[in-house]
């Protein structure tokens, strides 16, 4: 609030010389100097290599193809924080496009922070896989990720193959799991429940019972500074982790961190790409969104960061396919998840975890 007030107060001061200049018509205004260039702001993840990889694989090619448009990347730590920032600037947004988790985006859709896309301006939307589609043309899925097991390759001689390996006594005290409200723990609950033959929308008692047996083996429910650092350093040996970041950390740590997609399958996390309502560059923003959803951009980002593409026409090489959930046999093992339903029950599940799993 104070910022806005002071800006208003400063404006006449800034304008005075500009008016003076234009009156003498000697200077060029900055708009002319820029040749009418448009700048759009993208708000997306700041962490885990996402920013650098996204700029390289998606934004730079877009700017080359569209010399009139520049994309500024505004890195934010989490989807929830993005929503927080967007809420505070709802009446006068400074961001045009945002990439965030599907269930957080749905809250923003309902609050009127995001606007539906125009299918005519984002033709690539029609080629997206079913899981990437969002109601009423709101921002669709742009990346798929999935839960995996990450392990320290020095300490672990036989790589894990199953989620059940978490209960292996060899890992006692050497396990890290991000508990709910983090999506990691929510996802693990869904997977275990499915393995034990239950339906998570009916009851999660089977999963909770199993997790209670795991609790004494868990070193931390809130890995700091993050899961990947703990695995790489050997502070923990086995951890619940996300595929894309694990694959990247595997490469960056020269294989100190190993990644396994357990044979029972996993769940997919979806990041959506959204148009901010009331943004001044809606056309350029949608042009960028269309580019982000194009097979080329999707393939390039998958190759850099191992998120699986959401556009079904995307072609990636075998290595990238093997390291994401792109292969048909892996896709078959993915457990269907209704993230919006889960978002509604997140607080409730968090409570159950705290009462029956963690403080047990």
């Amino acid at each position, binding site marked *: *609030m*104070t910022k806005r007030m002071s800006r208003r107060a400063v404006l006449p001061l800034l304008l005075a010389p500009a008016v003076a200049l234009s009156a003498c018509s000697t200077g060029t205004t900055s708009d002319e100097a820029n040749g009418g260039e448009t700048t759009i702001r993208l708000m997306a993840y700041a962490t885990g290599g996402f920013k650098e990889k996204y700029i390289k694989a998606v934004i730079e090619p877009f700017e080359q193809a569209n010399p009139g448009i520049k994309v500024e990347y505004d890195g934010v730590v*989490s989807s*929830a*924080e993005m*929503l*927080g920032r967007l*809420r505070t600037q709802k009446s006068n947004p400074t961001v045009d496009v945002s990439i965030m988790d599907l*269930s*957080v985006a*749905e*809250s923003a859709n*309902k*609050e009127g922070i995001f606007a539906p896309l125009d299918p005519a301006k984002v033709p690539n939307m029609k080629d997206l896989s079913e899981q990437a589609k969002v109601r009423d043309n709101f921002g669709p899925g742009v990346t798929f990720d999935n839960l995996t097991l990450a392990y320290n390759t020095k300490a672990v001689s036989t790589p894990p193959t199953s989620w059940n390996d978490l209960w292996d006594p060899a890992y006692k*005290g050497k396990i890290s799991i*991000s*508990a709910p*409200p*983090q999506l990691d723990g929510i996802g693990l609950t869904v997977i275990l429940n499915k393995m034990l033959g239950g339906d998570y929308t009916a009851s999660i008692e089977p999963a909770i019972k199993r997790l209670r047996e795991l609790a004494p083996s868990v*070193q*931390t*429910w*809130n890995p*700091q*500074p993050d899961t990947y650092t703990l695995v790489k350093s050997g*502070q923990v040996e086995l951890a619940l982790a996300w595929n894309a970041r694990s694959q990247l950390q595997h490469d960056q740590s020269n294989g100190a961190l190993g990644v396994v997609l357990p044979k029972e399958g996993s769940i997919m996390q979806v990041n959506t790409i959204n148009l901010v309502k009331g943004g001044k560059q809606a056309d350029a923003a949608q042009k960028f969104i269309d580019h982000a959803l194009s097979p080329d951009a999707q393939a390039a980002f998958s190759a850099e960061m191992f998120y699986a593409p959401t556009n079904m026409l995307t072609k990636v090489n075998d290595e990238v396919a093997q390291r994401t959930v792109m292969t048909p046999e892996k896709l078959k093992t993915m457990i269907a998840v209704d993230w*919006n339903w889960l*978002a*509604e029950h*997140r*607080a409730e599940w*968090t*409570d159950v975890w*705290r*009462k029956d799993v*963690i*403080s047990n």
Partner: protein
Amino acid sequence: MALLTPGLLALGVSFLVPLVWLARMSLNRTVGPAELQPAVSPQSYIDVLTDGFMWKVAWHTLWLGLLVTVLTIVVSYPIALFLARTRSRLRGLLMALAIAPLLTSSVVRTFGWLILLSDDGVVNSALRTLGITSEPLVLTNNVTGVVIALVEIMMPYAILAMIAGFGRVSKNLEEAAGSLGAGRLRCFVRITFPLSLPGVFTGALMVFVLTISAFITPRLMGGGRVFVIATEIYDQATTTLDWPRASALSVLLLLLFGVFLVLYQRLFRMVEGK
């Protein structure tokens, strides 16, 4: 009055406006997972106050606050007393050493403790080398680690507050007691300690308030097992995105501070009035 205006204005903008905004937010509603809807509803307060787990968290917070306060005061008292009374030329240097930790952020210091107290950290290796333990003690990712780190982080505050409050401790009175036949212990119990109580109370209040509002250390050192009101507010505000609930919790925590301030003033007056 005219002279007061800028000060009042600054206070109003920097403290009052955010507080009013917070109080207003706590009356809004969260619909569905995290959709924020404007409203004037006490629902968040009702939810918080009827949630058994929140009471447990509140109780846990107070318990942690008391434990850390007592330990911090016990450890800091001798240091503060020494620094307040010493006539050594090194006093300035020693003061600076005691306060120096304040120059680094508590995030850095907590991470430092995380490394020192880990399974292969300095503390556990020393214990093993000395043959005191065979298995590493679990000193991180639990409440033990949180208490150790918090006590160390709070010590400079306690020392500063106590030194400031030790004004009435006087060498002359102690010497008088000594010349009248009181032993060292008796002199401490009857003269020095009672005179230092205002300092102790100020230090204790400061440590207590800082501890129950501490967020970073329980978060980083707790391994997700230590639930306190501050971490709860953080989760509600930044992960579950229930802003009204987070605001309601903040307002309630603020009220709790108020209660302790009043208690402190009573206690202070009691001691002073003696």
